[in-house]
């Protein structure tokens, strides 16, 4: 199977040069390679929210749940809990995951549920034609903030680290090879993984040049050290013009939520006789 086979007949409607193409091509390549390593494609479920990013599920010929704005995380969690053998990959935008759906993300990280969240962070609302998002810099001039945004951005990776995420990375839509590497590592990670991708919106917030100048790849970084991860994550605050590290910040293996949820999936339960027992108990 080639990556071509993973396409669908859906017409791609992203703008030419959109950072989403890099994510699409990377995920297709990774899905192909994990198949070659023995994971059947039918075990993969892709979940998306609403926004430009979300169209990705129309473009990949794999199981998918095209959900609603802000709710990728709980849908992905439900699928994973219902069938822990499935590999669940969520795609969400920054407005989607860091804005409307931020509570879900925090709780999924806290639970360390084994899902992968890929955040298309273009730092602007694209589909609704250009408003500031939770990660836009202070002073961002969008359609809802013509005089400039008056609130500073959040650092989503810092928030996720504090919330208990066990795999955190940053990618850039100008670096497919690195994206592929991070995706594969994240998907294979046992636990809650989140990749914040600086995905450039060419129409409303073209940051290619800005990011090209400032990004660098993390080297000799200890991903097992919480405080080292925190320091690196805090090197850039999504506002100041500092250097922007890319790569895996943090990685830690620990018990997952679905492992702790031990009650489920018992076979051979006789519902009727157990109901009768409950009723006898209530008499």
């Amino acid at each position, binding site marked *: 199977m080639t990556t071509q086979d993973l396409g*669908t*007949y*859906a017409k791609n409607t992203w703008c030419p040069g959109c950072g989403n193409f890099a994510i699409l091509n990377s995920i297709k390549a990774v899905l192909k390679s994990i198949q070659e390593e023995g994971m*059947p494609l*039918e*075990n993969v*479920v892709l*979940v998306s929210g*609403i926004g430009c990013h979300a*169209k990705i*599920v*129309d473009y990949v*010929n*794999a*199981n*998918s*749940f*095209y*959900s*609603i704005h802000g*709710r990728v995380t*709980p*849908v*992905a*969690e*439900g*699928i*994973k*809990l*219902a*069938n822990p*053998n*499935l590999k669940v990959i969520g795609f969400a935008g920054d407005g989607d995951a860091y804005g409307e759906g931020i*509570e*879900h993300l*925090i*709780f999924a990280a806290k639970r360390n549920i084994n899902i992968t969240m890929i955040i298309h962070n273009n730092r602007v609302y694209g589909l609704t034609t250009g408003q500031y998002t939770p990660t836009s810099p202070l002073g961002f001039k969008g359609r809802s903030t013509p005089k400039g945004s008056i609130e500073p951005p959040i650092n989503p990776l810092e928030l996720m680290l504090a919330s208990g995420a066990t795999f955190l990375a940053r990618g850039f839509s100008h670096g497919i090879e690195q994206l592929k590497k991070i995706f594969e590592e994240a998907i294979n990670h046992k636990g809650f993984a989140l990749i914040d991708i600086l995905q450039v919106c060419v129409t409303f917030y073209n940051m290619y040049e800005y990011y090209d100048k400032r990004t660098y790849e993390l080297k000799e970084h200890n991903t097992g050290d919480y405080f080292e991860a925190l320091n690196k994550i805090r090197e850039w605050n999504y506002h100041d013009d500092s250097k922007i590290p890319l790569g895996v910040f943090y990685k830690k293996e620990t018990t997952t939520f679905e492992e702790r*949820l031990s*009650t*489920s*999936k*018992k*076979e051979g*339960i006789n*519902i*009727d006789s*157990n*109901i*009768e*027992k*409950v*009723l*006898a*108990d*209530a*008499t």
Partner: protein
Amino acid sequence: MDEISILIGGKAGFGIDRSGAVLGHLLNKLGYRIYIYRDYPSLIRGGHTFSIIRASKTRIAVHNDKVDFVLALNKETLDLHKDKLKKDCMCIYDSDQTTIPPNVCCLGLPLSKFLKEENGPEIMRNTCIIGALTKAIGIDFSVLESVLKKEFTKDVELNLKVAKRGFNEAKELIRIEPLKQESFPLLTGNQAIALGLIKGGLNAYISYPMTPSSPILHYLANIADDFGLDVIHPESEIGVILMALGYAYAGRKAAVGTSGGGFCLMTEGLSLSGMAELPIVIVLGQRPGPSTGLPTYSSQTDLHFALNAGQGEFVRFIVAPGDAEEAYYWSAISMNMSWKYQIPSIILSDKDMGEGVFNFDLKTVSQLPEEKPYMWDRKSPYKRYLVAENGVSPLAFPPVKNEIIKVNSYEHDEFGITTEEPGETIKMQEKRLRKEKFLSEDLESIETVNLYEGQNKDIALLCWGSNKGVCLEIGKKLGVKVIQPIVLNPFPIKQFQQALSGVKRLISVENNATAQLTRLVNNYGISVYEKILKYDGRPFSVEELEKKVKEVIV
């Protein structure tokens, strides 16, 4: 004595609820039919809380205003419920707390002193007073002993000792004779709903705590292992319903439970269920609103909310059971219909339905109709939204080798890929809406509208949900019919009209201010002669409704 009503009251934190259950079981063991009304404020400690335990030779599902017996754990209980005491009412009170006995047949006992002497903690005053009551109504201590052993998991011996002391210190005032009839289980409406969902094949119950539905969450969490359930309490009602839809996509049956406020948050998920055709069962326990309203009281104010919640137009199944057996039966059917038609179902309950305690006789529950989901035949290539004659596309769940299963909140084609084409939009919208006709046809073979005959053929009480019990009792007493639609959407108009046959005066009885069921039947050209509405958060008592109905029918 054909029946007895006992009121036990005290401060929140006195264990009134537990006492109600013990008293219920005590009388249940003697073969009486039981109903328990529970009244408590929205707080943890302090405030006044009480339960009325009514036991009768025949089935009941409502409380009386006038009680035969009061167990007063504090003075307030006697002050607040003065008007509930029958002329020859009996009372056991804590003489350590209350010095002025009311003008009734009284038995003052120094409960605190007894507890001190028995080395029992203050919280056991209720057990002590129940011990005294057991003697006062002439029941053998052994009956209470067996109840306490079942109801208490810790400090059983101490509770027994304290109860025995109360028993020994009291005197027999009347004698409740054991009946020669079978005892049935005692369930809250919430428990019956939970068991019905299990009967319907529940795999996962997901819920954020909210009165009056939290007890379903607690109950299922406790019995999760016995039924192989995932019971999850996520971050919010939005998280709840979206998680549940994730379960549905993966082929596992999920239900959620909440009240009006939580259901507000769930409406985007409800609409997603309609569009993506993902089955879900929602238990909506009503309480008075708007907004926080009276959190621990009851109402029937969300019927039209349930009928209309969520953007867009889609098929939904709505039922309102009126007692424990109906709660069980219709919860199972809700699950089955949700999965057969891939639609959301809403079980409309309320605080009195959910937290009231009823007898439950499994033998009287009708056989559940065989309703199975349409499954993919594995022959043709899989299309999640295949346009079928009845609107129901066969189901498949991941993983399926060489097949792709796509669901979508956008309008979509048969494969589940987004479309904005006008032709495709019409085709899909019509496909989804077609399901209602077939669902309605299925429902025709089930009794969706209860008709209880009376000698008077002209007059009928119209009620829904928790008002069933009180209407039945008044219907019987005054000889008028009672009509109770259980399915509220798709509205069973045929069965409803059959039930109406011959009725000249239809009197609706509802716990809301705007007559919600009345307005619903008005839509079908049915007019109501008079409305009896109550919206103070409290249910109709037998006496109250009798008086109101009499005023209307004279």
